[in-house]
């Protein structure tokens, strides 16, 4: 209800928007250093960043046990034909643009 009283500090909130870029190392060095030094002294931020990092790892390692069914021979032929046709058009095309 009262954002100032029930939310994390202003500084935490500013960090909050940048955490993915921070973890992906996409921030300019100064900003990165600023966040690093804030986080090192802020327990809630440490926990939040750790759990965000862990979530990203989980997504990255999401188990992809599902494999496509073997490609039917007829489809393979169709693909190959499309490829060959593309090649012949390309070869027949006049040189240059």
């Amino acid at each position: 209800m009262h954002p100032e009283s029930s939310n994390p500090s202003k500084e935490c909130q500013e960090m909050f928007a940048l955490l993915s870029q921070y973890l992906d190392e996409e921030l300019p060095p100064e900003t990165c250093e600023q966040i690093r030094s804030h986080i090192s002294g802020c327990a809630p931020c440490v926990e939040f960043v750790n759990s965000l990092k862990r979530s990203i790892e989980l997504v990255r390692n999401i188990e992809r046990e599902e494999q496509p069914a073997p490609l039917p021979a007829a489809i393979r032929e169709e693909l190959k034909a499309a490829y060959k046709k593309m090649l012949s058009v390309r070869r027949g095309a006049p040189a240059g643009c």
Partner: protein
Amino acid sequence: MVSASLEVELARDLLAGKEEAFDRFVETFRTKIFQYSYLMCGHREDAEEVSQETLLRVFESFGQLREPERVKSWVFRIARNACLMKRRKSVFAPAQELSLEQFLPRADHEGGEIRLQIADWSALPDTQVLRGELRQVLNQAIAELPEIYRSVMLLRDVEELTTDETAEVLEVSTEVVKTRLHRARLAVRQKLDDYLRPAPREEAPAARK
């Protein structure tokens, strides 16, 4: 730049008319496209169809691939469009924006102290994750993301495309990719947190003033 990736070399060979690259290209990309579209569409049959349709489009228009270095983003763009053509209402709910504020750590008041409610489950071992319920929760969390966020997360975090490549696939700016990726991750983190956080001891009457 280091040596070109397998995909890029295969694309170069194909463009050069080296037909022996055909089978490897098909196998490499078919699995990728299938897994991506399975997570995008949520239906096995759709994913099978999307991967065949995508490959057909790819071979038909291979001559239009001007830069083989961009083969991955080019193929994924075709795959994504094929996914969108299959859109099913349940999976592609109307675009909905996720705001940053909704993912701010919640605070509660404990003896006058503001305490952030964040459970430290980051040390959770993989073995516990990979089996059973939590995997469901994770898959569900991704499936429930609005499409504009889900597609960014799948390309960046699952397929491990770069920010630039993802921007190319989705035809948006890199800033948009970064913003959406962050919100997608926050949303997934939130779902995992809801699931993993121990239930609060008791619901204290809101003593805020």
